[in-house]
């Protein structure tokens, strides 16, 4: 975690969480950051730097919930916790929906889309925007890249992805929208920025999500990095991560009031 970022523990609707405040950020605007890690791993320690960097780039304070992890807490524990944190932000902290954006990497990106779907279906006001980094939105693993990119992904194998999905679902229907929001109707969602790399098994998740969102009338931007791996935004010290961070910051600054 950067030394100049103030970290404050908080309980967000019963969910352990942290506020991350970089100097100069607007505390009236909140970036709800949902970490990746295959629903089994991930914490402030692993993802705090990325979350703080996005908060700095977007000039927003960050709420970082530590949602419950599988396999001890399978679906729908993670999305339940994320929804609880959202409700706490809205009702408990009185933050307007238009002053909140979502960001998530990998399964955190999937959780972000699931949150949008749930909030929309609940008839509530939606966040202003969402930035999704290599989002995992199809737990059926049916994307073409699962096979076509198998020899290019330096991090995952198809078997690893399937095991991650299975451990999280624990028997739940893999097409259920709150686990695989690719299968949810997407109309009415706020602007989405989706970033992915061509060297990842989950590339098709991003492409199909962008296509479905665009066809549903959502304002969506898809950025594909040639030769880049899963969640390359986290690869600190690379120009690709720096550029992606700036792109996300620019996207969010333009959309969150």
């Amino acid at each position, binding site marked *: 975690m950067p030394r100049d970022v103030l970290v404050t523990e908080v309980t967000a609707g019963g969910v352990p969480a942290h506020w991350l405040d970089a100097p100069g950020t607007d505390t009236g605007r909140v970036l709800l950051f949902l970490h990746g890690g295959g629903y089994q791993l991930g914490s402030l320690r692993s993802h705090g730097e990325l979350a703080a960097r996005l908060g700095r780039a977007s000039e927003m304070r960050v709420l970082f919930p530590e949602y419950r992890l599988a396999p001890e807490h399978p679906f729908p524990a993670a999305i339940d916790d994320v929804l609880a944190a959202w409700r706490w932000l809205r009702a408990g902290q009185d933050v307007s929906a238009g002053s909140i954006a979502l960001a998530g990497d990998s399964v955190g990106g999937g959780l972000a889309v699931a949150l949008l779907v749930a909030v929309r279906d609940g008839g509530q006001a939606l966040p202003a925007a969402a930035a999704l980094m290599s989002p995992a939105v199809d737990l059926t693993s049916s994307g073409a890249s699962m096979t076509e990119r198998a020899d290019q992904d330096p*991090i995952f194998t198809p078997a690893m992805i399937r095991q991650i999905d299975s451990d999280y679902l624990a028997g739940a229907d893999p097409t259920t929208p709150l686990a695989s929001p690719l299968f949810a109707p997407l109309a009415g969602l706020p602007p989405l920025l989706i970033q992915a790399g061509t060297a990842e098994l989950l590339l098709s998740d991003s492409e199909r999500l962008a296509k479905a969102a665009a066809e549903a009338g959502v304002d969506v931007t898809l950025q594909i990095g040639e030769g880049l791996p899963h969640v390359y935004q*986290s690869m600190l010290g690379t120009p690709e991560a720096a*550029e992606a961070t700036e792109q996300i910051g620019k996207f969010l600054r333009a959309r969150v009031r």
Partner: protein
Amino acid sequence: MGGDVRGERELSAAAGLAVITPGRARFPVGLLAAQAEGEPPMPSQAMQNLIDAFRDRQKARARQARPSLEELRAAFAPGAVSIRCLATCW
């Protein structure tokens, strides 16, 4: 992958990102459009070093027993940070 409608494309040469902004009622899908226009950027040397390290780790992992979930959680960090724990994390 891919539709038959072209999207707006910008190129961020500094970082090799193909940026595709589909319009509301049309969708390109970017990768094909980007490649059709040539100049697919390559990863930077810093990124390539990380990719190579990930590949080495992937090969090593195939020869090793999978660490326990507790070990994975203790060691997990995405991206460059995780290079410090190549032997144990995903």
